[in-house]
């Protein structure tokens, strides 16, 4: 399949390994990525907090750019960030609700010759994996099953709530997909308290203690549930759970050492991509437990 690909900002900034690992696994899953390199930040909820119209217009522009690719053969728009998914879905809900409002927004876009038409399909890589590629197909592609690897899912708020906006229901249990993917890759799903909770990142500059307390608590719960690692489809969660983990450990007063993988990295490991190519060496918390499991040549990873 071919997708209009929106990588987001953080996946090209502080978690560049996410963008890199997506590029590495895409061809193996037969996904052709057409990058929307002229698109802008989704606003991560912060721009909407400042001005809804600004966030709606910026995302309408991204959707319009994606629709240009869709007319040229792309199947849908795909993102790799829970926060992009949630923030963009929120804007899309308003844009799709009213032709009058959409016309106002399109008026602003018309200077650039762009127009958003309602009803774009914009899916996170997680949803594409389960709904478009399919778990059965994914299973057939696994070269190195994650046997005995104990993985805790960490979704990120934006991709699981609110359920009605994100079309999560019994027929489409998108809030259970991470577990399904982990199982399809041969791993063991760890049930722990924090899987659907907030990583705390949005308030890191406003109330640092509360923010790190959230990250530390969920990581600690995963440690207690004897997870080897966590996996997340959200790079912003990754910032608080991995980059800030030493600070979170201090905040909650316990050792954590919990590796956190991006979703394409976990998929890549099972598909036989080397840890180095997946950028695992860039994480703050060394994913030693994961590397040991994959029996990769640790010496080859280098730079630890």
């Amino acid at each position, binding site marked *: 399949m071919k997708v209009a690909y929106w990588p987001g900002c953080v996946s090209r900034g502080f978690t560049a390994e996410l963008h890199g690992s997506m590029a590495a696994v895409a061809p193996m899953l037969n996904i052709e990525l057409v990058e929307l390199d002229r698109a802008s930040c989704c606003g991560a909820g912060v721009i909407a*907090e400042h001005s809804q119209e600004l966030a709606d217009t910026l995302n309408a522009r991204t959707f319009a750019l994606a629709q240009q690719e869709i007319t040229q053969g792309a199947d849908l728009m795909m993102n790799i960030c829970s926060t992009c998914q949630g923030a963009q879905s929120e804007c899309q809900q308003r844009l799709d609700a009213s032709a009058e409002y959409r016309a106002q927004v399109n008026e602003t876009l018309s200077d650039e010759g762009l127009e958003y038409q309602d009803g774009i399909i914009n899916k996170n890589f997680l949803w594409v994996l389960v709904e478009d590629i399919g778990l059965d197909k994914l299973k057939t592609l696994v070269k190195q099953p994650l046997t005995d690897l104990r993985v805790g899912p960490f979704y990120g708020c934006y991709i699981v709530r609110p359920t009605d906006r994100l079309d999560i229901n019994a027929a489409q249990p998108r809030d259970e997909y991470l577990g399904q993917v982990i199982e399809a890759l041969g791993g063991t799903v760890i049930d722990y308290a924090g899987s659907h909770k907030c990583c705390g990142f949005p308030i890191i500059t406003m109330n640092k203690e509360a923010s790190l307390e959230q990250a530390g608590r969920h990581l600690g719960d995963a440690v207690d549930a004897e997870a080897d690692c966590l996996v997340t489809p959200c790079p912003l969660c990754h910032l608080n759970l991995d980059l800030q983990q030493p600070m979170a450990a201090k905040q909650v007063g316990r050792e954590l050492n919990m590796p956190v993988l991006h979703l394409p990295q976990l998929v890549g490991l099972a598909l036989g991509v080397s840890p180095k190519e997946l950028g695992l060496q860039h994480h703050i918390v060394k994913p030693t437990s994961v590397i040991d499991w994959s029996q990769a040549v640790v010496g080859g990873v280098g730079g630890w």
Partner: protein
Amino acid sequence: MAEFKLKIRRYDPETGAAPYWDEHTVELEPHRSVLEGILQARNENDGSIGVRCSCRSAICGSCGVRVNGKPGLACHTHLDDALASAGEDGVIEVEPMGNMPIIKDLIVDMDAVHWKKIQRVTPWLIGKEPVPEREYIVSRESMIDVTQSMACIQCGACVSDCLSMEVDPLFVGPAALAKTYRFVGDPRDAAHEQRLKDLGEDKHGIYDCTHCFKCIEACPKGVAPMNQIMRLRRIAGNDFHIKDRNNGERHEMAFVNNIEKNGILHEADLLPDSYGGKFHPRAVPELISSLPIVMTALLRRKMTPGKALLHPHKAPDGVKRIFEVVEGRDERNEFNLYISGTDADNEGTAEVAEAIEAAEPAGVAPDGTEGSSA
């Protein structure tokens, strides 16, 4: 009639014994409520089950509990729906709400948490002076707007599942902040700015919400507390320019300016700018405290000095133009789904409105202006 298995969380702090699960089988029609199930268990099996309820019609807000881990009203949850969301064993789990101390079994101490927070936000209208001789005239739209937060029945479901309150019990929380919007959104209230300044400066106020959507999901009345909190922030920052000591407004503006300049987020600038700039007295200790992480990140080549210091990505002209147009408007253009509804919802309503207007004689419209004659 059908049989339902209820597993009720029991706890009596006065006995000193640990909490435990208690299973009861009840016989009721599937469309009956979980509350009726609990009451049947209490009346027929065990009179000591503690549960609070009154109206049984989802209006008094007394019977807030968690059913299968999700907060809501026991009287507003059908047994068949609860069974559908139960685990594989087909047992409906009923627990007390979270974030509040338990008095007994399913009864939590609303006074200790919820009501204290409601009192914290001055939950009454502070009228404008001088008081007009006749009634205040308020536009229809602003009245519909505040009805969303007025729909709150104080059940505590949002408080129960607030993830910020879970780690910071002092957080004013979703119910009280939705109540704040009820007055900040009311044109008759005289204290908008004071309310926002108070709750912006409070470390546990409007900027302590993590945007997790839990309260929106929890509310049985569609109040969407988080949306109200975001509007409080919007009004505090945009209309009153309140520069709070928690960096809420600074962070918001740092983010907006960052995107206007770079198109996509340049994280290396965001943190210092959120504290007022790299050389701001507040920023310096923050930056020093994050140095060990920065060093590790550089060492692992998670970021490179070049990437952090240079700005390789520039906002395309189209993005700049959007900022120019939207930020240049005299008034904020805020599309509110709650007021407007969707096109699909409104289909046909225009014709109905016209028909009503045609049937009514000319008169005075609710906003005091003279109505158009039919």
